[in-house]
């Protein structure tokens, strides 16, 4: 087999492989980012940037010419990129302090009314409360309860022990419950 043929076949296979990764994680990564930035437009931008960076790193890691580490866990890898991009986004715009959840539209106005009312009524309440939690609490709740990641994997992503992650999850839930149960004045 010639090196040209091998190269072309490999490239096609990498794309095929990353295409599967994209299909599997696009909704999760988008949701993860959307829950943190509260804007469809920004969530779309950061999600596409996440996958672009992911693809570039994935492509390089498959190339033996480059001294790059192989992407062993695409899920953890993509979440790490997404986390960094969200942090960079807030750092750049100074939005972490300026944007209050109360003044942020719950969903993008372009979304249809049915979805809007649904989000604003029931799950919107959880969303607002989740947004008020600290980053680690948000992450542990999203990964374990929304993405169904086992504690073992969440622990790896947070660089904690499984026991410490369970404690963190417990505290995060408690904190979320307090946020929701906090008397609201209207």
């Amino acid at each position, binding site marked *: *087999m*010639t090196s*040209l*043929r091998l190269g*072309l*076949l490999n*490239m*096609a296979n990498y*794309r*095929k492989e*990353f*295409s599967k990764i*994209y*299909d599997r994680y*696009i*909704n999760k990564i*988008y*949701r993860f980012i*959307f*829950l943190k930035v509260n804007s469809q437009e920004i*969530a*779309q931008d950061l*999600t*596409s940037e996440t*996958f*672009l960076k992911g*693809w570039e790193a994935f492509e390089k890691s498959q190339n033996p010419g480059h001294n790059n580490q192989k992407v062993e866990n695409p899920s953890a890898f993509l979440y790490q990129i997404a986390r960094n991009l969200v942090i960079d986004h807030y750092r750049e715009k100074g939005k972490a302090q300026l944007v209050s959840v109360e003044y942020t539209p719950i969903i993008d106005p372009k979304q249809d009314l049915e*979805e809007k009312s*649904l*989000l604003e009524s*029931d*799950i919107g*309440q*959880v*969303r607002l409360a*989740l947004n008020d939690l600290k980053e680690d609490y948000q992450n542990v*709740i999203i990964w374990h*309860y*929304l993405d169904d990641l086992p504690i073992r994997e969440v622990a790896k992503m947070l660089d904690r022990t499984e026991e410490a992650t369970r404690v963190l999850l417990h505290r995060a*839930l408690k904190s*979320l*419950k307090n946020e*929701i*149960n906090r*008397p*609201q*004045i*209207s």
Partner: protein
Amino acid sequence: MAYFFVIIIVMTQKELIFKIRELRQIKPREDWVSLTKSQILGEESRNQSVASIFQLFFSLKPSYIGLAIVFIFFGAFGFAQSSLPGDLLYPVKKIVERSQAVFVSEKGKPQASIELANKRLEELTKIAETNQVKKIAPALEEYQASVAQVTKNLAKVTATTSDPLVIRELAESTQKLEKNKEKLEQTYGIAGLEIKEGSNPMKVLVEWLINDLEKRTLTEEQSLLFETAKKDYEAGDRFNESLEKLLFLSSPQE
């Protein structure tokens, strides 16, 4: 007077987890998902098809390889027809066009070259529609070269013909080309379509028509219009306006 209501919501842990899971309803738009995928992995389909062709080619018996080469050769000609400037197969398309031009008579060459210039505009439209920014520069070069060829061919015809009908037909086609160019400029805001003064095909036609009309007897009204047409020509950037007036004057009057 303002009224304040205190709402206290008490939720069990089970209910809370249930509500968290409801956040799964948050999903990106499907069209955005597929568009982003094609933007990131845009080369996927093309590379995959190239890889498949290679795979098939190398798996063939030696006796069939010759046949495969013939198919590839003709296939390349076929694919080349839809290629755009900057594409790998575009030079093949140009070779095909040049070889077709060999069989066109001297008389038919100006019309054929106007058609080719229109093709270049169509390529630019495709490029603009699909936002292939990198291809704009080579496409503009191709367009400018094709217009220069039109002017060259028109100059040859105008130097030899004395038939106003031939010139009228060519002038109408040239005007259509100009309209297509203007449409492209207005719709996509493409800059760089301006024709260099020396290679403006309308200038050649205007000069022929002015010479022809100077030999004719014009009414007072016609003479006034003719003078305006000449002024447009002398301005150097109103060849289209001049051509309109001259075509009107040269058309058979009742």
